[in-house]
């Protein structure tokens, strides 16, 4: 049976990991396809996966009982989606929906959590990578909060 290891090994996320660590992560991976409009996960559901987007686009939405879902961010080719599998209580905070036909590598986070408990070197490698992703997401969220294009004009009223 063909494994997903070669596919995973090409991705920058695993750059610098040992072949055996990549093999371990690949052992938890599967190739999945989502149709336009299909949800990958929904707010509040158990979060036992993360995704490496091979091709396509995913929207992150916040649900609202009185409005249409609020579109917060979109992710595209090559990006990593999902960190709730790492943090108790392992539930999705937002919903993820395919905006077009999207192919992903889906990594079973529950399986990986178990392997990380047994192999702390692997756990540390993964945490370093997710810390980097989370830092980038935090920067982005803060910049969105600043509303920089609106504030840019406030100081220059000519």
């Amino acid at each position, binding site marked *: 049976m063909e494994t997903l290891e070669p596919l995973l090994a090409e991705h920058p996320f695993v750059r610098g990991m040992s072949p055996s660590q990549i093999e371990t992560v690949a052992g938890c991976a599967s190739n999945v396809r989502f149709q336009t409009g299909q949800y990958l996960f929904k707010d509040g559901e158990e979060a036992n996966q993360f995704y490496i987007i091979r091709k396509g686009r995913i929207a992150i939405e916040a649900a609202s009982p009185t409005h249409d879902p609020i*579109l917060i961010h979109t992710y*595209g080719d090559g990006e990593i989606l999902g960190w709730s599998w790492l943090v108790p209580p392992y539930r999705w905070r937002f919903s993820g929906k395919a905006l077009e036909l999207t192919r992903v590598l889906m990594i079973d986070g529950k399986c990986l959590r178990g392997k990380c408990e047994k192999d702390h070197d692997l756990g540390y490698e993964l945490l370093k990578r997710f810390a980097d992703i989370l830092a980038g997401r935090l*920067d*982005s969220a803060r910049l*969105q909060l*600043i509303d*920089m294009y609106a504030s840019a*004009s406030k100081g220059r*009223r*000519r």
Partner: protein
Amino acid sequence: MTLAVAEAPAAAGRTGPPSDPMLPRPWRVCRSVRETDDTFTLELIPEPGQPVQPFAAGQFNMLYLPGIGEVPISISGDPTYPHTLVHTTRAVGAVTKKMAAIRRGDAIGVRGPFGTAWPVEDSEGNDVVFVAGGIGLAPLRPALIQVLSRRERYGRVVLLYGARTPDDILFRKQLREWRADFDLEIQVTVDRATHDWRGNVGVVTALISRVPFEPGHTVAMICGPEVMIRYTVMELERRGVTPDRAYVSLERNMKCAVGFCGHCQLGPLFICKDGPIFPYEKVAVLLSQREV
């Protein structure tokens, strides 16, 4: 790597500065285009007999409305055709609000061009990544036009453009045309989506990881709010583009435009004379200090 930031018009050959840089020359509006709710473009032609000054991508003019005031505005048109001056700006103050209301045939005073230019020619042989935020696409547009007119001289060319909302996206028609007609990767994103928006959502810096370029052979030209510039350079660095390969356009309250009055001083620099285009390393420290 440090490329030279051009100090004088390069595209059309230098003919020297106007005899009196403080004296506005009369031009006339030949077209006024409303780009978004608060942003407009003026196309100007010279009054008969008036000299036409060549300009380089990144330079700015001082536009003057008699009895109202004068404002610095980047040139957003084609540097190979200086006979029509194109300026795009937001109507946010007394002068620019009046300017937004002027029509074809109205007169306007022009001083310039002033300042330094994007390193367009020096970037030949490299990948070029343009990163624009909001109205920052306007000062980058002449450099993009110039690069696309000599497309074969560059590697990958990428435009990453962030706007506040879909309604704030500038030059929509031209973005579509560029996408269709040129070997140019364009990614547009908005900070806040409307329900009918089908494109990217998120800050422009998030696009940097998605596009292909060779970091060691890439020149980045960045224009937008200064906070965006700083985070863009950080994100480029994460991709392996060193800050010495980044060039930025800064804006301050330019008044005289020739380095006399000091209104646009930023630390040891006068934005009007030493800029507005700077190698990022020259201004990096100044951009993170308050009240410089």
